[in-house]
């Protein structure tokens, strides 16, 4: 029965996955370079004008969010196709449309000098004080639309495939079992549950994004038409929050699939697992007002929801996924290698990173921490030290099942990435503690020391990532779709 639903391992499918990994590695490294360069501008070590700094910041943000989405989708596609029939064409369509979007965004920034940040907070794209023009803003916003359409096509294909096999999202999310009387059917793959959750939240998130992007385009070309700034902010943060969260919920599929192969202990669904994914489906969409706690005119019930749900959103990560992984590996007799090290480290990055995020999600803390470097501190923790090693670990695993030996360079790169990465994030957090604003291209003298420390740590992270990336690219021709 299940074999009938499995996607065939064709040469085309393998090539598509290799394309995603190769492009993903290249873009990740380039965007890391852009981020490190912006940090060096903040440290006053690179004599670039502020405008160039803000262009780097915009490029780094947009590029990282986009490539995180694509690489996360690649991991989801890789494993989900074992349970349902997915289309390689739709998978490649997402890549093609995204590349069109990337070209438009690069042109907007590089030629049009757009520097409105990846969040394109309305009405900033349309009001640059003459720094960039309407076409540049429209190219950036239009580029995001192309990327969004690509993702919608991919999710549509995944959704149809899940519906063909399971009949409804209710069943593929395991809700019939969660609320049903009988024992849980442990043959329902965690990959299917996680994929269903991501499809639900990200289709809704991207549709909200599409609405606000079209409204932004109208605002850019027809200045006489203006929209409610608070409504636009809500839509933008709903879209942005859901999209970036979805990246890690796609990537964690690799952990569910791969870690049990090392330990010999299956990772099966259970009631707490299903309850946690059901809760996360709702919470990830409802928690976004924690980005708007300093918009005092927001309805107070939304502020309360932002704080309370922000706290609750940490529970599934800490007590279900991270705790579950630790129980799975505890005294299992596993043999460590680079992919496993990266996967377990990624869970640490994710679990530890949500803690300062939860702290900042409290209104009383947000009053003195919002938009300081505390924010990049916590999101770099769970993206740079969570998402990135999670993706790298999964991609390395599927490329190294043939004859392969971990080298001393691999271990050195892993430890450099981990230690320098933790230092990099803690410098950001310390900046937040000290009130250093985020998104300043020019830092006051009192803040330069932290920016310089951050630049050094960032350069080390980049060097380690380069080694890991090259190791992965070198093995990519031997990737297996059935690893």
């Amino acid at each position: 029965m299940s074999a009938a639903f499995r996607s065939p391992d064709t040469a085309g499918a393998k090539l598509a996955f290799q394309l995603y990994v190769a492009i993903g590695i290249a873009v990740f490294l380039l965007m890391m370079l852009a981020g490190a360069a912006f940090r060096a501008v903040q440290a006053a070590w690179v004599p670039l004008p502020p405008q160039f700094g803000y262009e780097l910041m915009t490029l780094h943000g947009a590029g990282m969010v986009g490539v995180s989405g694509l690489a996360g989708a690649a991991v989801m596609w890789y494993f989900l196709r074992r349970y349902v029939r997915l289309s390689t064409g739709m998978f490649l369509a997402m890549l093609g449309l995204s590349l069109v979007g990337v070209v438009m965004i690069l042109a907007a920034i590089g030629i049009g000098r757009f520097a409105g940040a990846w969040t394109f907070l309305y009405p900033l794209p349309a009001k640059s004080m003459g720094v960039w023009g309407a076409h540049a803003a429209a190219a950036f916003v239009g580029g995001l639309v192309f990327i969004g359409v690509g993702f919608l096509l991919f999710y549509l294909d995944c959704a149809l495939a899940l519906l063909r096999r399971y009949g409804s999202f209710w069943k593929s999310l395991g809700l019939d079992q969660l609320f049903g009387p009988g024992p849980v059917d442990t043959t329902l793959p965690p990959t299917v549950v996680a994929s269903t959750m991501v499809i639900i939240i990200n289709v809704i998130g991207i549709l909200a994004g599409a609405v606000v992007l079209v409204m932004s385009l109208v605002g850019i070309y027809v200045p006489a038409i203006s929209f409610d700034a608070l409504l636009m902010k809500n839509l933008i943060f709903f879209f942005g929050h859901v999209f970036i969260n979805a990246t890690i919920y796609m990537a964690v599929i690799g952990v569910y699939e791969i870690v049990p192969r090392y330990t010999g202990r299956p990772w099966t669904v259970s009631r707490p697992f299903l309850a946690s994914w059901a809760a996360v489906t709702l919470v990830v969409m409802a928690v976004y007002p924690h980005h708007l706690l300093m918009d005092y005119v927001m309805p107070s019930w939304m502020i309360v929801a932002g704080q309370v749900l922000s706290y609750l959103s940490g529970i599934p990560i800490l007590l279900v996924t991270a705790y579950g992984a630790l129980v799975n590996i505890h005294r299992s007799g596993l043999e460590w290698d680079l992919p496993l090290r990266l996967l377990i480290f990624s869970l640490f990055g994710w679990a530890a990173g949500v803690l300062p995020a939860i702290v900042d999600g409290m209104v009383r803390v947000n009053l003195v921490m919002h938009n300081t470097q505390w924010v990049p501190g916590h999101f770099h923790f769970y993206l740079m030290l969570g998402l990135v090693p999670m993706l790298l670990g999964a991609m390395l695993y599927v490329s190294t099942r043939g004859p392969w030996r971990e080298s001393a360079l691999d271990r050195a790169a892993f430890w450099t990435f981990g230690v320098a990465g933790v230092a990099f994030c803690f410098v950001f957090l310390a900046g937040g503690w000290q009130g250093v604003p985020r998104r300043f291209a020019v830092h006051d003298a009192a803040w330069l020391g932290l920016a310089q420390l951050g630049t050094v740590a960032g350069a080390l992270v980049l060097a380690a990532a380069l080694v890991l990336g090259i190791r992965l690219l070198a093995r990519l021709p031997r990737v297996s779709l059935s690893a």
Partner: protein
Amino acid sequence: MALKGGKMQNVAWVTSLVLMGAVAAVFLWVAAGASRRGSDAGAMAKSAMRWRDRLFWLVIAAGAALSIGTLWEWPIAGHAAAAAKPDVVIRAVGHQWRWEIDRDTVRAGELVEFQLTASDVNHGLAIYQNKTRMVAQAQAMPGYVNKLQVRFSEPGEYELLCLEYCGLAHHGMRAVIKVRPGGAS
């Protein structure tokens, strides 16, 4: 809010360090022993899940206490149901890239209400006692007025920065509030 800037930042910093350190310690402990094989995996997993259930209820109880404790009295003073009547009102409008404020001097001890809005794009007004101590902040948004209440307890010059990215000279968008010694007028 009373102006003892830095206290909340210290609480956030220390709390985060302790919690993140605890997570790191658990990961290191489990990872260090993962390559050894335990005797009964099933029993270990059952015991771990029992601990998780207890931990879950502890986390829920802590969250309930924290939520009630920090939200019962509305933390945004200017928008509380029974907001205190301010001694001084300062109207502040954010423009690319300057703050327009109708008053720049107040007295220590006065309850000052900043009524914030913006003429063009989103801005964020943050009050700094010095470069490394933020006192409070609020967003300044076109079409809306956010009311930020601050009681300056120490005289001196306080810098106003923009904390919502607003374009090319965002980092240079600043103003100063002078706080003179003396009680409420």
